[in-house]
């Protein structure tokens, strides 16, 4: 482990990626994540095996990632909402070809050009595949500087292990915050185990093809189910969530990223007033921590989904609970950052409207 460093969120992602052995980064300028791209430019320029290209578009960048990934090396790209839209074709292809890649989305207000403030409007895009076809990508949601470091390291490991693109879903607020962070020891990319499926010139072996075109429909169906079985395995193995004060909770807030930080502040305030409220903070948005929710719903009667959007994770909560408990929603799209007081008020209103018991 390194010593504690005080770093801006965008820089945390980049430093973590380099320490994970990533030597290939392709990006394009877009607010509010330019610091990530610039850090990579500097970091990779000072490494003998580092390759940084400012690509001509976010679209070109994801395709460069495809090329490096085919060659078996760790590669990353990053952007913010509109630029991530441009990458969807590439992400669909990466998924189909089972190629590893890490994509960091620093969400901003949308849709369209939107604004440069923090939002959580890309949840559907990230968790439902995003591009065309029947696929999913792992989606990780850090909620602090330390988690940005830890989950970036995890992203590269999961990506290689499962041969799947991994999206890290952050937002404009977290990318600008500075928090103390400890990094794990750096990985030398040469020490990573070789991959048996890469394209590197057919020397001493039969030639290989990496493709996603499968004209035969029977074979294509089998390929889709093969991906699906992989997704089931991933769900069993890596689903993660943080539980905050949920043991005796009557109402549980569900929030991720910046929203979870605000929620924690709100929960501390209402706990002081005797309300039994906790937080379920998903760290994997795909796979969604459905089991955690189901387990909790045996006792918890009310769930409040708080998102910086008009309600996207809300649908996964509803799907998970299948009508078992009451689900409430509070959302602020467009880049508005709620205050803990505001959320505390919302929690308070729901709590008393539903007649939940307090600690006297």
């Amino acid at each position: 482990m390194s010593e504690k460093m005080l770093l801006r969120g965008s820089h945390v992602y980049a430093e973590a990626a380099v320490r994970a052995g990533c030597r290939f980064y392709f990006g394009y300028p877009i607010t509010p994540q330019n610091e990530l791209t610039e850090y990579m430019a500097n970091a990779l320029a000072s490494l003998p095996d580092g390759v940084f290209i400012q690509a001509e578009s976010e679209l070109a960048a994801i395709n460069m990632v495809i090329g490096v990934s085919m060659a078996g090396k760790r590669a990353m790209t990053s952007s913010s909402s509109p630029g991530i839209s441009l990458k969807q074709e590439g992400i669909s292809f990466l998924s189909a070809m089972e190629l590893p890649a890490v994509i960091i989305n620093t969400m901003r207000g949308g849709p369209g050009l939107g604004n440069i403030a923090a939002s959580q409007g890309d949840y559907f895009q990230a968790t439902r595949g995003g591009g065309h076809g029947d696929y999913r990508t792992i989606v990780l949601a850090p909620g602090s500087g330390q988690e940005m470091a830890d989950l970036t390291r995890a992203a590269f490991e999961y990506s290689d292990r499962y041969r799947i693109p991994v999206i890290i879903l952050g937002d404009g607020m977290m990318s600008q915050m500075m928090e103390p962070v400890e990094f794990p020891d750096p990985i030398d990319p040469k020490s990573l185990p070789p991959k048996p499926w890469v394209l590197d010139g057919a020397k001493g072996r039969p030639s290989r093809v990496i493709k996603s075109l499968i004209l035969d429909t029977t074979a294509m169906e089998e390929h889709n189910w093969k991906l699906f079985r992989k997704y089931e395995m991933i769900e069993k193995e890596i689903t993660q969530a943080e539980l905050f004060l949920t043991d005796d909770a009557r109402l549980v807030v569900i929030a991720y990223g910046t929203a979870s930080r605000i929620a924690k502040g709100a929960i501390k305030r209402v706990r002081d007033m005797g309300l039994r409220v906790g937080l379920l903070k998903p760290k994997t948005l795909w796979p969604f921590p459905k089991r955690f929710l189901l387990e909790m719903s045996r006792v918890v009667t009310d769930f409040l989904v708080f998102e910086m959007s008009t309600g996207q994770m809300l649908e996964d909560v509803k799907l998970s609970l299948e009508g078992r408990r009451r689900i409430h929603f509070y959302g602020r799209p467009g880049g508005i950052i709620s205050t803990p007081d505001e959320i505390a008020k919302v929690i308070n209103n729901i709590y008393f409207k539903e007649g939940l018991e307090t600690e006297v």
Partner: protein
Amino acid sequence: MKKVFGKPKSLKDAVFHYCPGCGHSIIHRLVAEVIDELNIQEKVIGVPPAGCAVLAYDYFDIDIGESPHGRGAAVATGLKRALPDRIVFTYQGDGDIAAIGTAETIHAANRGENITVIFVNNGVYGMTGGQMAPTTIIGQISTTTPGGRNEKRDGAPIDLSEMLALTNGTVYIERTAVDTPKNIIRTKKAIKKAFRVQMAGLGFSLVEVLSPCPTNLKLSPVQANEWIGSTMTNYFPLKVIKDKVGKLGALPHLE
């Protein structure tokens, strides 16, 4: 009697699915012959297009990585940057490279990526049934220009190779054709030079090959070749468009 002409080693035994008289099969053969002669079968990685040649992976006995439509130059950039001592080439049609892939191609060329691009120009979108392509010529009939390409409505045909020559990163660009035996031999020479430019680490090389699509031109193979020679070359003259490398001597450390 000794055999003086046969199938190159770098081509699999698969039977070509291409139409009778299609230029793709000739160009595939030339690329494979060059790979054999340069002895790079174990070092080369190909990036085929979306288009009729998407099935190139069935034919070339080399490592092949499929690219989304038009993005070949960006995928090849990633591959070559990751594996600088391998030979990376793209094989792209006119729609792939000069419509949807224009930006990626121009920028890879501008960066001087050390890759080789084989640009197969048949003036039409073949696989999808004969729609107008960026290189369809004025008056040429296609399924989306039923009255013939109209300059006012559709623009004139685009000369991507000349555009690329304007960027600093390109070092060798030649336009050839496969409509006659002489031109086929010239095409092979150009492809060989382009690969050797890459092997010498000199920069971005491209060979544009005018190629017949008899099916969508609605001509016989012989007529399609005549059309190339008499008409298409008026818009796309066969010539060396750019050559900053000159004559390449032997490359003893590479070949």
